[in-house]
């Protein structure tokens, strides 16, 4: 533990000297801040309103309705928050967000591309009068969460496959013939019970993507792996026969390398576009698609690092102490490989954000009614006089992507202990 904090302290010490990287870290932190506070910074509902002696917090309300005691009629009313025209009320006190507009909501007063003005729409409006700044603020949320969530998926896949390939290499994974063949045989029932039997539940993913269906997918995956593990142990039962008990090398590294090679050969953007054309456009689908296609770099880093440390003293001594493979990977091998993989993850977030904004620029990917940086830019393409629709969203994408790239670059330099000499 002590050693780890020493390493991170050293990385930080070197990272701090890198001015561009440090600045981009602060830029990203402020973007993250904006993303988290988006509904408070830009909303068409007041943060606080006092009306007829009653106090409401519409922007913070989690329920869709509020109970309202109407003094004029003397009746209790339930108000649907999204349907009340808060701007027309004459309240006693009110406090509005910094930008009192919701992204995509039209403002008839300033329709038809009104230019930026310091009075109402700070960065101008789109064709239907929707506020650009508000769209940018909420777009931060979408871009950052797609970038981070998809790389989370990619990291999981990349780390698992990278560990498998790097730790076992081509010669160190030995299983008995029985287990080997039983596992291959197990793929069929595993697929059957994991995916075929549950196909009606799973097809919901395409129709109505969301957390619930993601859970269904996970469940299928767990069933799949469970059955394969079951077959593995069943294969151990075959060890009584000498033929099946004979050890067989599994070329873990070659298998994973081939998979990586195939994935790298596929034009990623076109694959994503093709899948996005077939699946229903949604936030979750986009995260899944980007995540499943961008793990290769992470897997390569982890694999290379583990192959390098495979013969290091501390790994050999853990072998000698009889620790299980899983424990050695998780406690000794992986922590050292995570650092270089972080760099790949940071670069990956940048490219995921680029892919997302490129897709929404084409009108594919996230649903049409969701305002993103890319969709704002797309709206700007229709009318070049509305330069604010082109310049500001593009600047936001550029700033975020550059910051992530600079951050990744800074991290790489800071972690490169060798190069420091």
């Amino acid at each position, binding site marked *: 533990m002590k050693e780890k904090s020493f390493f991170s302290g050293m990385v930080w010490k070197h990272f701090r000297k890198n001015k561009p990287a440090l600045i981009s870290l602060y830029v990203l932190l402020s973007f993250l801040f904006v993303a988290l506070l988006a509904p408070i910074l830009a909303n068409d509902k007041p943060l606080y309103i006092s009306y007829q002696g009653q106090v409401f917090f519409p922007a913070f309300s989690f329920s869709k309705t509020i109970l309202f005691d109407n003094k004029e009629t003397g009746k209790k009313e339930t108000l649907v928050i999204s349907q009340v025209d808060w701007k027309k009320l004459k309240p006693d006190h009110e406090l509005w967000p910094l930008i009192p507009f919701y992204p995509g909501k039209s403002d008839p007063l300033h329709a038809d591309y009104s230019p930026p003005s310091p009075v109402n729409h700070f960065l101008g409006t789109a064709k239907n009068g929707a506020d650009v700044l508000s769209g940018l603020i909420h777009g931060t949320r979408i871009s950052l969460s797609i970038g981070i969530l998809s790389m989370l998926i990619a990291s999981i896949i990349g780390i698992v496959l990278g560990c498998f390939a790097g730790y076992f290499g081509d010669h160190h994974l030995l299983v008995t013939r029985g287990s080997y063949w039983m596992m291959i045989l197990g793929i069929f029932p595993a697929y059957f019970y994991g995916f075929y039997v549950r196909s009606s539940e799973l097809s919901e993913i395409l129709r109505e993507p969301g957390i619930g269906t993601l859970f269904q997918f996970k469940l299928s995956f767990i069933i799949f792996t469970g059955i394969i593990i079951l077959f593995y142990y069943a294969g151990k039962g075959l060890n009584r026969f000498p033929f099946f008990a004979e050890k067989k090398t599994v070329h873990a590294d070659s298998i994973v390398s081939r998979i990586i090679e195939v994935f790298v050969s596929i034009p990623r953007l076109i*694959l994503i576009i093709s*899948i996005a054309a077939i699946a229903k456009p949604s936030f979750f689908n986009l995260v899944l698609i980007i995540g499943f296609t961008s793990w290769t770099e992470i897997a390569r880093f982890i694999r290379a690092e583990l192959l390098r440390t495979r013969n290091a003293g501390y790994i050999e001594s853990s072998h000698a102490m009889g620790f299980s493979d899983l424990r050695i990977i998780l406690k000794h091998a992986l922590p050292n490989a995570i650092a270089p993989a972080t760099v790949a993850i940071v670069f990956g977030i940048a490219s995921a954000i680029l892919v997302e904004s490129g897709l929404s620029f084409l009108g594919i990917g996230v649903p049409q009614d969701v305002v993103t940086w890319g969709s704002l830019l797309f709206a700007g393409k229709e009318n*070049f006089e509305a330069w604010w629709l082109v310049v500001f969203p*593009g600047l936001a994408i550029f700033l975020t992507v550059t910051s992530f790239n600079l951050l990744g670059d800074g991290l790489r330099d800071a972690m490169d202990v060798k190069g420091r000499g």
Partner: protein
Amino acid sequence: MRKYMLRRLLLFIPTFMVITLISFILLVNAPGDPVERMMTASQSSGDNTQSVVQQEQRAYWTHRLGLDLPVFYFSIHSLAEPDTLYRIPNKAERNTLSQFIREYGNEKEILRFYAAESALEKKVDGLACLAADDTVTVCDHFNSDRVAMRMEWSKLKSTTNPESIRLIIQNTKTFFLKYDFLGKEISVVENLENNFEDILRHPQTWKNYIPCISFHANNQYHRWLFGDGQSNGLLRGDFGISYLTKQPVEEMIRGKIGWSLFFTLVSVFFAYLLSIPLGIKAAAKKDSRFDRISSMILFMLYSLPVFWVATLLLMTFSNTDAFHIFPASGIKPVTGYPVDAGLIDKIKLSLPYLILPTICYTYSSLAFLSRTMRVSMLEILSQDFIRTARAKGLPEHSVLWKHALRNSLLPVITVFANVFPYMIGGSVILESIFTIPGMGSQIYNSIDAQDFPMIVAVFTLTGMLTMLGYLVSDVLYAWADPRISFSENTSAA
């Protein structure tokens, strides 16, 4: 060397197979019924004869598209689901049937029910109006009722809800009892009803949990890949028929691939032409002002989203309100080339259209390439043989361009493989912004029209091109550095 190339070529095959498999999975899972898409032009419902024509057409297209075959070499299914399900030509019908089986599991009863249903329809279709007296009005009623009932029966093929099925059967009964000449045939309806009740009475859901595997030598994937009497198959360049134009896809692509390749190759050329001297200069004067500034600029170029730059360029240089220097879209004058224009005239006319797209294609790979060049040059410059060259008193120019360049080129050559797919992917965005009639804009238009054979064809082709890029760069690498053995190369992949 020859052995290496041979093995590299052999590796090409499984990767290619995986790409075709992914394409095929995309194609099979695409929403909508392809047969329906092909038939839309000639669809009009109602009359008896028309529906016969329609059925014939459906059968024709199903066979022509190869959809009357099983999907893959093998299929994993449950004991309940018959492996001949694919023979049902209508996709919606097929889905209802398989859902029915999932719910009750007694496939024999379910199939019998569907058979009874089609027997009933055939019976009613075959019947002429046999009313004895005041024929005209009764027969009119009968015909209009029959049309209404046909609608009801078609609902039978899209629902598995027992209540609504019972209701339809009840309606059928009343319809049969309404007319004397139909009343005699009531046994057909009773048969249907009994069959349906049988399904409900003896569900065998356990059958859904018993896995089965069946093999099919002749299947859709095989046909799609290798073709049969009707199609040549993907391997011989037959990508199927476009849903949109009903023309062969490869004919539509043939005219488009040229422009995509043109832009990619031209910009790769420019990127290399510019990045090599840039990288060398930056590396030769490491940490100088030139190095720092150029690195910073290149880094920013690398992060600039290409669609933003393209839009900004269009906004600035082909906007009638700003500088109207370049045309906004297309690759040749709207009126086309003059009839007597030679090649040089054509190039002259097209040039203004090509400049902005080429800049966009080039700049991001330029940034990437010069960064790689700089790093590789720095590494070479720190090596002993360069020190020796300098110690010999060779001029710096000669050290850089003669000794160092050749050795530092290697990584830059291999990066070709990274640049190439990047450009192909970027082409979707760039081609649709600049309305270049290439493969990228084709895939964009096809997505709008949900023309899946086209999408899949473009995907497969770009995948193949990307793989070719890797192949070329690997071979170049091996050719430039004979020390590289096959195993080393794959570990770098």
